[in-house]
């Protein structure tokens, strides 16, 4: 009988599930998020209770066998949130236990290749967010931006923005996943916004057109710069769209 492990969707929850599949010696287990789990008549299900201790043990083992590289790969693959990525991660960890060197370098192995491909997608989205996020200065003190990335990249873009904008308060809010990261001049904290609170109004105003006048001016200057730096006789829209796919245009004032 197929065993299905249902977890809460968190990183630690996933690691706990991996621990449980090993301790139960489960044959071909499946791991699914509670949010999308549909009970099946032919499968027995286990509800995974997230446990920091178990998760840490799995993480330590990954790090010991595959160093930071393997740990980073697994984490980034998890952030892709793709269907079935849990099983890919599980198979990757199984491979890592069996043959640590192959797991990191054997690009001919389907499990290794699958993980690397998922990680590559996440990496690309991370880089695009670092490029396409546009801040608006609100209330003279907070630089705010809203995003809807394909993958859950907020945790991995935080260090980039923290080291870059160390002297300004900033907030990046993921509308799709309904949480954001906020830097208060000391540390980056994860926040969720109460729909009635003031910051929500602030964030909403970044999507509408009622920005303060100075903000509109800077946006105009930027749009003007973008227009003037183009060379008309070299126009190549195919190349342009390849670099700036249309789904990102909503962030870019010069493309709206």
């Amino acid at each position, binding site marked *: 009988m197929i065993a299905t492990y249902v977890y809460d969707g968190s990183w630690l929850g996933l690691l706990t599930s991996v621990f449980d599949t090993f301790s139960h010696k489960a044959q071909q287990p499946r791991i699914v998020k509670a949010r999308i789990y549909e009970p099946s008549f032919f499968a027995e299900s286990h509800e995974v209770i997230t446990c920091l201790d178990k998760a840490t043990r799995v993480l330590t083992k990954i790090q010991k066998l595959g160093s930071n590289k393997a740990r980073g790969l697994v984490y980034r693959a998890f952030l892709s949130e793709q269907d079935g990525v849990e099983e890919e991660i599980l198979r990757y960890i199984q491979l890592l236990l069996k043959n640590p060197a192959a797991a990191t*370098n*054997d690009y001919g192995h389907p499990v290794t290749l699958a993980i690397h491909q998922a990680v590559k997608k996440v990496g690309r989205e991370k880089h695009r967010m670092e490029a396409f996020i546009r*801040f608006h200065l609100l209330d003279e003190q907070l630089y705010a931006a809203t995003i809807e990335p394909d993958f859950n990249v907020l945790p991995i873009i935080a260090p980039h923005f923290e080291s870059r904008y*160390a002297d300004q308060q900033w907030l990046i809010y993921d509308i799709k996943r309904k949480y954001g990261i906020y830097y208060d001049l000391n540390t980056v904290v994860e926040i969720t916004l109460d729909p009635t609170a003031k910051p929500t109004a602030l964030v909403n105003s970044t999507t509408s057109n009622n920005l303060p006048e100075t903000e509109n001016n800077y946006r105009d200057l930027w749009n003007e710069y973008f227009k*003037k*730096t183009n*060379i008309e006789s*070299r126009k190549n829209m195919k190349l*342009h769209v390849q*670099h700036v796919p249309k789904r990102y245009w909503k962030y870019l004032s010069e493309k709206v």
Partner: protein
Amino acid sequence: MNYERIREKLGILADAAKYDVSCSSSGSKRTNKDKGLGDSSGMGICHTYTEDGRCVSLLKILLTNHCIFDCAYCVTRKSNDIQRAAFTVQEVVDLTINFYRRNYIEGLFLSSGIFKSPDATMERLIAVAKKLRTEERFNGYIHLKSIPGASDELMREAGLYADRLSVNIEIPTKAGLKLLAPDKDHKDFIKPMKAVQKSIQIYQSEKKVLRSTPVYAPAGQSTQMIVGATGESDRDIMYSAHFFYEKFQMKRVYYSGYIPVSNDSRLPALGTQVPVMRENRLYQTDWLLRFYGFNIQEILNDEHQNLDMDVDPKLSWALRNLDQFPIDINFADKHMIARVPGIGMKSVHKIINARRYRKLGWEHLKALGIASNRAKYFITCDSRHFESRDLTAAQIKQHIMIQSSSKYAGQFSPQLRLFS
């Protein structure tokens, strides 16, 4: 700040600076210090792309487009009847900081027309960089132009604030320069390059002794050449690029297809098509020299003075050297795999790692991401299927060209279109 006036000036001075193609914002090691603003230690970031497909990572502007020189190829030449404008130092600083804080840009690329004298111009450029670094505590990327003819002392100072310095050689041959820019001397371009190169070496050796030595132009130097203005061959261009890479340890040489900006009889007429395809082939050659271990004489020599426009230079080289192929992907040397058309350096790395664990077949190679439509004529692998016909170079080229097309092909091909 007078917004309307700034907007007007930004329009004029961005428009004048856009023919400088250098856009990189990587290669610097400047980290954020004492919670200042900015960090340029990571990889370069392109914040947007213009409709011509070029990346925008820096605020690229001229300080002024007033110029005392009259170079035929340049849009800001003295005799050209255009609107002139100039920014103050403070205006450039404000624009840079405010754009940077909103995540529009990675930093500043500041160039200038030469007003009064080279030294006066260079001093003003340095003043902007100095103000950004010291007063605004800015750690983003700054690219300054070295003004031909500026004194060595000023060049030494510039490197203390800038991440990268560049002089555009513009015309690859001395004869061409004489024809198009009679007021300029070839030596004036070389002098600031030498000064900067010397300072970079000094600071690097001092850094080994004293760790607190300040960084000096950490992203090195670059230069640019105009392609297609004076009828040089690809060999002339690449040989002089090679000279700058070897002699001055240039980080990059850029190639800029000439965009007709004047009705001068010495130059291609207005409305002539920009040689984008040729430019693309030159960059591909540049990459082969810097990353793929090719020697310049292998690609361009007396027999082959120009690059093949139909196919990329690596494929073109392979077709001329069919005696070296096919190679077995499971045993061949790393350098030889890098020479196979359709296999890039990332794939080379993956192949080398993967073949330690198993013999690789076509399905593995395709999954790794090689372009098998090109590579299949040049390699064998762990499979019984391989190209067994004894094809000539012309036949292989034909087969490959039927299956593929460049993204520059449609619009910028030198081939005339029947319907347009």
